[in-house]
């Protein structure tokens, strides 16, 4: 245990000597895919609740497909599947993008988390109190202003508990990134395992680090809920 810590602590946390590795890569994957997913999910959620079927059905199909298949299969499709197509290899821009495992992992993760986030946000938008929207319309707000001033601020707050689950699940999902040769935390643990044959210690260290980040996220979201969902806190005490 001590010898693994002495020799590999840097690789587990931030660098394997030549490039970023371990925890830093995992956190980067999480941050960028969750950020892209969040930004795309807001317009998609608005489209998902639209009464126009031509707008809402395609979004439904997207979330249905991405929520109905495993993330690992989606990553394989993007990393090994798309790159095996000959026209991708012959187009230099596409070739450069899909050759890199990191790009593929980020694309797959962002698409996946965006699908779940869209449904979470859409659910929250649907649950907006009818009177609030009516009041906004009575003030003569346009559709856009209604969403910007009334619906989205309250819906995103109410989505917070569901969204926090999604972010923590996404942290766990980033562990499949090593199958696309991304040097994330689990990749380091696997390398240490094959170098030392101390499986329990090698994977246990990674598990401990994932656990720490999970707890940190739970704590951070609890703070966020205290701030933005203060009105929902039970009275008394």
């Amino acid at each position, binding site marked *: 245990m001590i010898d693994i810590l002495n020799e590999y602590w840097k690789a587990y946390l931030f660098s394997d000597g030549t490039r970023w590795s371990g925890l830093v890569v995992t956190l980067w994957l999480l941050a960028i895919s969750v950020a892209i997913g969040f930004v795309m999910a807001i317009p998609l959620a608005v489209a998902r609740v639209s009464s126009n079927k031509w707008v809402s059905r395609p979004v439904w199909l997207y979330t249905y*497909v991405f929520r*109905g*298949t*495993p*993330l*690992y*299969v*989606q990553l*394989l*499709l993007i990393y*090994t*599947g*798309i790159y*095996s*197509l000959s026209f991708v290899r012959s187009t230099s821009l596409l070739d450069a993008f899909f050759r890199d495992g990191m790009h593929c992992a980020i694309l797959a993760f962002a698409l996946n988390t965006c699908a779940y986030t869209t449904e979470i946000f859409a659910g929250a938008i649907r649950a907006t109190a009818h009177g609030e929207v009516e009041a906004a319309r009575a003030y003569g707000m346009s559709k856009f202003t209604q969403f910007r001033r009334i619906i989205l601020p309250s819906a995103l707050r109410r989505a917070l508990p569901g969204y926090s689950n999604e972010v923590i699940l996404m*942290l*766990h*999902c*980033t*562990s*499949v990134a090593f*199958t696309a040769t991304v040097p994330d935390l*689990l990749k380091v*643990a*696997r390398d240490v*395992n094959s170098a030392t*044959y101390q*499986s*329990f210690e090698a*994977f*246990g260290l*990674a*598990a401990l680090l*994932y*656990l720490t980040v*999970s*707890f940190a996220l739970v704590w951070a979201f609890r703070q966020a809920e205290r701030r933005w969902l203060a009105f929902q806190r039970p009275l008394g005490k």
Partner: protein
Amino acid sequence: MWLEGYGPLILAGTWMTIKLALLSLLVAVVIGLLGALAKLSPNRLLRNVATGYTTLIRGIPDLVLMLLLFYSIQIWLNELTDWLGWEQISIDPFSTGVLTLGFIYGAYFTETFRGAFQSVPSGQLEAGYAYGMTGPQVFRRILFGQMMRFALPGIGNNWQVLVKATALVSIIGLADVVKVTQEAGKGTYNMFGFVLLAALIYLALTTVSNLVLMWLERRYTAGVRSMPL
């Protein structure tokens, strides 16, 4: 030729995935029921063990636990057989997959069942005791049936997540639908088509599960008045 000769292999892989998911579900439900009873028991030690189990397992990624257990169980088993002077027993990916998935999702089922047990009004149990039923009788005749109704949506969610998690077992070498489609893709130089096929098979599995769950929910909520909203 049907799927360039890989058809039977892919069918076998799909069957492997279904078997894996169903057996893991069984293990997870049993662990979940025991865990929920432990969490609700008056014994402090049992409660703490169950809380530690659910907190720990739900904080660590499935894949990390799977690899941890897959390699460690083999090493521990080797040490045990060496110590006993037996021949080495090598465990196969299928049983490891069932045990680890069951062990992991047992933690999620524990939480589902705990919430469902707590949702059964205590007056129901009191009525049972007032009729002179024993503890196990109250559990079997009154608590369990009503609990299942509250647990069903949670069970459905966990099942859908579990089905998708089975894809990870191909990483430890099980010939499931992911693994066989990868092989078919490599063999035919049509990776894209075969991975897409795997995705479609999973989509079919989750769609069928959705329909079954909707049917079950209708059955279990028969006789419950829905709230007019």
